[in-house]
């Protein structure tokens, strides 16, 4: 039985210092980064930051062993919710974003009753059906969802005035910083959650659900908790996206988007916290720099599909499984015992 908990965290004070230095360097890079890239790449940085939250929240769901095809629609629930609260009810945008995320969590809670009667493949198909139903409802009902064209002219994030300085979030760089803060806080919460007793129990539910039940773990409640929490953060990501684009429509959250999330997560790997982040960052960089540079826009899904198939066949534990090997190469030590889960393995 592979150890899915990962080997990071814990350790002595020396390791902690390294981690801190690493984090400081990482954030220094992330803060400087938008000033080094072109305008369109600044926009992509905003999307990438939001997508990091999507994949990490998706991974929380996979921790309990269930693979959902409804995650992107749940993200859309956050975007639609937040947009409607801000536009139709006049709620201030920051509060609307939180309410949108709560709406996504509430929808997930309601869906958990039918969905958690299913497992494995049935859960996958059930979540797909539930997501499609929600998406078709957006498409069908012009009031209040705007029909196929969706919601337009959503209020954007309000300017902040500090003394004489006005920070406009119309500027992608400022919105990027804002997303960076929100996503960082969210990732911290998700990380602490996984490290907590509850997070460890998620792993137990995944690998030994019968045994976990036998020692008194309420697996249904834990699955629901993972699903609702993941959906909250997906909804938050949706709200961040909606108020940046100031428009949401049903096609933004269709199954193709879900497939991309799946590819990011699987290519990155799901055994470690950083795996999905690695996946989304590497694939976005490949997408934006290599593919855009080559000018092969139409071939993009072809290459993405090929990457997914190749990963499943030749690197089933994802990019993250290369990290210990790279580390070992760097320090000249033998790599630790292989760890991690294969995508889709029950």
């Amino acid at each position: 039985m592979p150890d899915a908990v990962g080997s990071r965290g814990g350790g002595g004070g020396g390791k902690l210092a390294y981690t801190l230095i690493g984090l400081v360097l990482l954030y220094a890079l992330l803060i400087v980064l938008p000033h080094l890239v072109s305008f369109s790449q600044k926009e992509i940085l905003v999307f990438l930051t939001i997508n990091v939250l999507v994949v990490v929240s998706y991974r929380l769901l996979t921790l309990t062993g269930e693979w959902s095809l409804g995650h992107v629609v749940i993200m859309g629930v956050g975007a639609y919710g937040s947009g409607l609260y801000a536009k139709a009810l006049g709620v201030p945008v920051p509060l609307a974003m939180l309410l949108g995320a709560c709406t996504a969590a509430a929808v997930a809670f309601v869906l958990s009753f039918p969905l958690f009667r299913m497992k494995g493949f049935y859960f996958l198909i059930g979540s797909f059906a539930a997501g499609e139903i929600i998406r078709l409802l957006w498409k069908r009902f012009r009031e209040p969802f705007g029909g196929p064209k969706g919601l337009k002219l959503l209020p954007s994030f309000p300017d902040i005035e500090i003394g004489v300085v006005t920070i406009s979030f119309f500027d992608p760089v400022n919105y990027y910083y804002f997303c960076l803060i929100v996503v960082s806080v969210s990732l911290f919460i998700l990380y602490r959650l996984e490290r907590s007793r509850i997070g460890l129990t998620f792993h137990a539910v995944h690998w030994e659900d019968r045994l976990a039940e036998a020692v008194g773990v309420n697996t249904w409640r834990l699955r629901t908790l993972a699903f609702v929490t993941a959906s909250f953060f997906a909804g938050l990501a949706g709200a961040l996206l909606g108020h940046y684009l100031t428009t949401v429509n049903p096609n933004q959250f269709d199954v193709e988007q879900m497939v991309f999330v799946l590819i990011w997560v699987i290519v990155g790997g799901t055994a470690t916290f950083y795996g999905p982040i690695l996946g989304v960052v590497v694939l976005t960089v490949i997408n934006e720099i290599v593919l855009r540079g080559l000018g092969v826009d139409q071939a993009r899904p072809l290459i993405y599909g090929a990457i997914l198939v190749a990963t499943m066949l030749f690197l089933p534990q994802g990019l993250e499984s290369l990290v210990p090997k790279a580390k070992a190469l760097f320090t000249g030590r033998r790599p630790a015992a292989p760890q991690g889960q294969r995508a889709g393995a029950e």
Partner: protein
Amino acid sequence: MLDLFLQTVVNATYAASYLALVAVGLALIFGVMGVINFAHGELYMLGAYAVVYLYVEQEMNYFAAVAIGLIFLGVLGAAMERGLFRPMRDNPLGGLIVSIGLLLMLQAAVAMGFGVRMEHITAPYQTVIQVFGMEGVVIPLQRLFVILAAIILLGGLWVFLRRTRLGWAMRACAQDNEAAALQGISINQTARLAMCIGAALAGVAGALTAPLVRTYPYMGHSVIVAAFIVIIVGGIGSLEGAVIAAVLYAFVHTFVTTQFDGVIADIVGLVMMMLVLIVRPTGLFGTKDRA
């Protein structure tokens, strides 16, 4: 009023026919290999594009184009089994995930080869036949082909599975892979044959409906969603269930579309599937095996 009702019955029969061709293949593949082939809608789409390429662009005889499409899809199905699904055999959701990758690749390949524009193919036979002896109830000959093909091919498959040794082997694999292997049945060969048949059925459905629908690289999506609903409602892995559920779904969908609109009909179909998943996950005709 009666003629509208009867016309809807005729339309639903046609919808049930091509849906059954797609869904039975999907159910067969799941039954024998335990894999859900997400790219099945794209196999249907490739069948339609075989007609676009051979019949429209190369000006070949229509039925020759359909036959070549069938063979091409059969070979492609066998290749998928060997290249994608066999390495994923011990990974329950792995086959599904690689088929999603293949789905993207096939869509993009067709979009690059033929463009994303919708193509409208003129049907080779424009004859329209009156049925039930009523003025307002008609069926175009092309739709009748689809219904006949479904009856002949699915009937043939049924006989094959019940009356031949190879068919018995296939059913044995569907019941218990390991026990079948112990009887000397080659799991690999059986799986390849199942993929071959499943893909060819989807290809025929696509090739025959191509002149009736608009062909475009993403046409597989609505078909695969409908096929999923059908195999879940019918009981996953059950071929008879898939046929009966295809008829049921096609009638519900056609009647709701006629009464309300297409989106509502899609929602009703998905709700039907959710209800089955909640109340009776083995479907209307499924057994506990493979559930």
